[in-house]
């Protein structure tokens, strides 16, 4: 890939992307379109989870088929606390992150002993266990889920309740998460992750055992996805086991691959593309999947490197 194309992809695209996203509320107020604001809020929340997945999947080749579990854990943290009448964000958000981190630590420690398809299956298994545990919580709605009567409170500022303020909150979290993960990806730690993906044997030979690095990355990704889950509970004011279904985990993987593996901001593009396409196509026909399915297939067959690959039309980086 040429220097200019690389610059475009890695520097200009993300700046453009975030600039445009920052203007969504402006556009929404100008056109008096509340729907688009709410829609993009939902997209950005999922984008946070997608970026965290790209960190471990794209960079570290850890194909977790249970990543949606963290969305659910974060959401249920908010939901369960709300049921106990605890609405303060400075309690529920850290709890969401902590619980997710612990779950990631325990399940990651076990899962990362396996490789390849076995890793995929074990992460799926843990995701399913989280899902079924949630369905068994009849006190919190069980299978049907739990409606939240209100949103988290942040020192009485109404930060979470206003449409625009909540959008910018989610935007800020997405920006911070993306910047943080990009920073880590460029660090020595990130270099180990990327190197381990290319040649595990080489890393062992120079004295690095990738396991602990992978586990650390897995926990970081889990915590960020947990935060996304807490935001999701606020956004939809509803908490349900479906947030953790394997279909949800699959969708996250699709978003990441669609956007182009490993770039991190590509996952945001993937989330936008996936959800926007779903919405647009659904507007035309209730059978939008008839078009969406083959579109995905075409992207795989002819679009090397996902959407970002289409932008530069070059080799997978």
């Amino acid at each position, binding site marked *: 890939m040429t220097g200019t194309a690389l610059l475009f992809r890695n520097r200009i695209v993300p700046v453009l992307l975030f600039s445009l996203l920052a203007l969504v509320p402006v556009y929404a107020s100008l056109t008096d379109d509340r729907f688009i604001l709410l829609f993009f809020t939902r997209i950005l929340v999922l984008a946070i989870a997608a970026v965290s997945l790209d960190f471990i999947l794209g960079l570290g080749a850890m194909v977790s088929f249970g990543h949606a579990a963290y969305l659910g854990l974060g959401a249920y943290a908010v939901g369960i606390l709300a049921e106990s009448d605890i609405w303060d964000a400075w309690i529920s958000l850290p709890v969401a992150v902590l619980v997710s981190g612990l779950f990631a630590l325990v399940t990651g420690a076990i899962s990362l002993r396996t490789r390849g398809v076995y890793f995929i299956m074990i992460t799926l298994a843990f995701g399913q266990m989280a899902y079924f545990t949630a369905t068994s919580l009849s006190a919190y709605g069980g299978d049907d889920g739990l409606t939240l009567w209100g949103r988290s409170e942040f020192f009485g500022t109404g930060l979470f309740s206003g449409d625009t303020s909540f959008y910018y909150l989610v935007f800020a979290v997405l920006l911070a998460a993306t910047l943080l993960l990009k920073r880590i990806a460029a660090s020595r730690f990130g270099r180990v992750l990327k190197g381990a993906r290319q040649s595990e044997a*080489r890393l062992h*030979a*120079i004295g690095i*055992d990738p396991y602990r*690095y992978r586990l650390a990355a897995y926990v970081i990704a889990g915590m960020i996805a947990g935060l996304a889950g807490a935001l999701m509970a606020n956004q939809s004011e509803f908490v349900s086991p479906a947030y953790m279904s394997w279909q949800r985990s699959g969708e996250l993987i699709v978003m990441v691959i669609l956007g182009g593996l490993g770039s991190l901001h590509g996952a945001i593009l993937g989330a936008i593309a996936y959800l926007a396409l779903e919405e647009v196509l659904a507007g035309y026909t209730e059978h939008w999947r008839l078009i969406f399915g083959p579109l995905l297939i075409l992207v795989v067959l002819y679009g090397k490197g996902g959407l970002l690959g289409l932008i530069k039309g070059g080799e997978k980086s």
Partner: protein
Amino acid sequence: MTAPVLQLDNLNKAYGALQVTKSLSLEVLPGEIHAVIGPNGAGKTTLIGQIAGNVESDSGKVIFAGRDVTGLAVARRGQLGLGRSFQITAILPEFSVLENVALGVQARQGHSFHFFKRAATDRSLNTRALGILETVRLSHRADTRAGNLSHGEKRVLELAIALAGEPKLLLLDEPMAGTGPDETKNLVEVLKSLKASIPMLLVEHDMDAVFQLADRISVLVYGGLIATGTPDDIRNDAKVREAYLGEDETA
């Protein structure tokens, strides 16, 4: 007599009924290149695996720099100073040549749980990495994507990454495999220049290179050593001649 850097003590390894390594004992002394040669199927790959830690020996000991490393993991042996180049190139193809070596330097400097400083511009890594690349005469390719190197250049990069770890011993698994005459010549010169500072165990098929480089040669046949000695001793050894009858020999 100076203490050996590497001491193999009665190593054994069998796969089912096939005894691949038989009561093998061998030493590598400081300042020497000790070559291991032998016909195909002799068990050289398994031996390397046993020394590096990929293969678990059935019995026997591997003593490295005075320490029994027999039960230790591969990464631990790497941390203790056991450097290795692989027979099937194991470089990091998506990284630049410089970044490949910088990773080796980074590994030498301790753990990599550093999350915030940019690694690509880290002078403490890059300066040393460039120095190593100069030693192996690959610095002109520092910014090239490693996957785009020629085969011979990749073999040299293998060596460079191993050198980045400041190894106490280099385990070289057929470094000349598939290299052309110029690249072989380059590698031989580089290895000769390193001999004084880093002892090496060299497994090779290229007899020319072996006889140019080796201070001592051990001959491995069907998992057991049939002879050990100076190049001249080996050249004239009747058992060795017999083992290689019909094999390509350029000595």
